[in-house]
């Protein structure tokens, strides 16, 4: 019997990189989250497990608020519900002074249920069902109009109430970034906004008091916000002069990045993602140089990702090991793209719960789904892991616990590590009963 043949290989070892104690590899170890050991969290609450840090949430909010207030006198942060609408997370931001930014009936109702008054809600989104739109009007929400049909709906509601309604206009425009999100609101360059404004003025039932734009997501160009702010100021002055309205707020939307690693970017986020202070400066410069002194409309920011992403972690466990035909190692984790929707766009930081000996080698991290697309990371660099090893993926605080799917398996618990170091469940794991509760079996199938 001949021995199996392997083609001869020689690999150069990056000695300094491998052996140096303070190398980036030792930073790939995360033993605790805000002082609570990863092992303890997983043993107590199970794996996989989403973990949020209250300390990080509050610190990031305070930092951003002070940063922008240091540049411009009137700033309001409106918490983007779609980014993460877990009650506990929203509560933290509302306690810190954020209003609510919602885009649907569900989100509006969730904010109201949490005790947010209507006049502390910014209502965006391309489809606002008539009923909820009426409720929002009556409760004094800031409504940013997305389409002409919505204007017709609002005019009808205004007829019912007999009062003139105050609305905001959503505007899309060229700020020099690609792709251009031109589906929200009315286009500036084509003159659509002014046509709509003329139509609103002629109707006599609505009054424009705010302008809103949302340029996109994970925008790495601070100057784009400066250009957006300039264009909105110019537009507001035109509207004030032509129609006699007073523009009380300029809402620059969201899209501010977190330190996550966008796929296709070669550089690490510490280098590729501009500091948020640059965004604050570009926006404030555009506003302060164009606005008449003393006349400062409220600046509204709908930061979601930049506030929450880096406060979220996912603890997951290696459940099986494989060797792929091309020689790479592969690991099957208990969390996949069902929980990590953002894995399609970002390379997460992958950390191991403890120091593991052995040279790091490229490997693939698969989730537990029986689907080829269930890849958490195509190419992680990890030492040989044993079954049962826990990994910590981050940042995962934005969009994952809203866009996760109940697919093939249950969704796990979410815990919050509080400021005094307690871990508290903020969402229970799903059970079979949760999932089948809404199903019905017709009589003849029983």
């Amino acid at each position: 019997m001949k021995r199996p043949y392997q083609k001869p290989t020689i690999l150069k070892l990056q000695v300094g990189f491998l052996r140096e104690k303070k190398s980036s590899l030792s930073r790939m170890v995360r033993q605790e989250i805000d002082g609570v050991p990863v092992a303890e969290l997983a043993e107590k609450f199970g794996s996989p497990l989403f973990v949020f840090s209250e300390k990080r949430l509050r610190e990031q909010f305070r930092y951003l608020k002070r940063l922008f207030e240091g540049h411009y006198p009137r700033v309001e942060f409106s918490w983007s519900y779609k980014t993460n609408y877990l009650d506990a997370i929203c509560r933290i931001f509302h306690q810190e002074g954020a209003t609510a930014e919602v885009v649907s009936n569900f989100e509006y109702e969730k904010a109201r249920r949490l005790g947010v008054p209507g006049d502390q809600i910014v209502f965006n989104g391309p489809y606002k069902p008539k009923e909820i739109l009426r409720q929002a009007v009556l409760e004094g929400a800031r409504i940013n109009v997305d389409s002409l049909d919505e204007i017709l709906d609002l005019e009808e509601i205004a007829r019912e109430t007999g009062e003139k309604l105050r609305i905001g206009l959503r505007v899309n425009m060229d700020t020099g970034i690609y792709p251009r999100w031109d589906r929200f609101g009315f286009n500036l360059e084509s003159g659509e906004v002014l046509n709509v404004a003329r139509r609103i003025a002629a109707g006599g039932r609505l009054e424009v008091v705010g302008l809103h734009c949302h340029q996109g997501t994970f925008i790495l160009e601070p100057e784009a916000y400066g250009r957006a702010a300039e264009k909105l100021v110019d537009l507001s002055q035109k509207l004030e002069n032509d129609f006699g309205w007073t523009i009380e707020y300029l809402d620059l939307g969201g899209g501010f990045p977190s330190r996550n690693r966008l796929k296709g970017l070669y550089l690490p986020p510490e280098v590729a993602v501009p500091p948020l202070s640059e965004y604050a400066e570009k926006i404030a410069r555009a506003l302060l140089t164009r606005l008449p002194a003393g006349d400062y409309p409220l600046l509204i920011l709908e930061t979601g990702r930049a506030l929450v992403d880096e406060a979220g972690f996912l603890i997951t466990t290696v459940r099986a090991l494989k060797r792929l035909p091309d020689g790479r190692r592969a690991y099957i984790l208990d969390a996949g793209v069902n929980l990590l929707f953002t894995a399609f766009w970002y390379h997460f930081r992958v950390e191991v719960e403890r120091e593991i000996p052995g040279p790091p080698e490229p490997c693939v991290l698969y989730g537990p789904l029986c689907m080829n697309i269930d890849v958490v990371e195509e190419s992680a660099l990890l030492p040989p892991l044993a079954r049962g090893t826990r990994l910590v993926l981050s940042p995962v605080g934005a969009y994952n616990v809203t866009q996760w799917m109940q697919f093939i398996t249950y969704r796990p618990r979410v815990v919050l590590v509080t400021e005094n170091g307690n871990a508290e469940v903020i969402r229970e794991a799903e059970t079979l009963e949760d999932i089948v509760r809404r199903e019905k079996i017709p009589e003849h199938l029983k």
Partner: protein
Amino acid sequence: MKLKRLAISEEGFVFDPETGNSYTVNETGLLILKKLREGLSLEEIAEIMNEEYGISREEALRDIQDFLEAMARFGLWEEKYG
């Protein structure tokens, strides 16, 4: 000959004292390195690989040349052999 200066362990760890660089070779790579140091020709090594693993001499020779090219890229192989 550069090859003589390399420190080669039984596990396939290769150290070049001249540059301080380290390398790992797999089992087949280790076999080739050892036989080269013993002064065998490429054809003789291919013959051994044929006996050990049952691959053809042609394939063995091609893989040896591939391997030597990789060695040359690391500056570990300079001489034209055989």
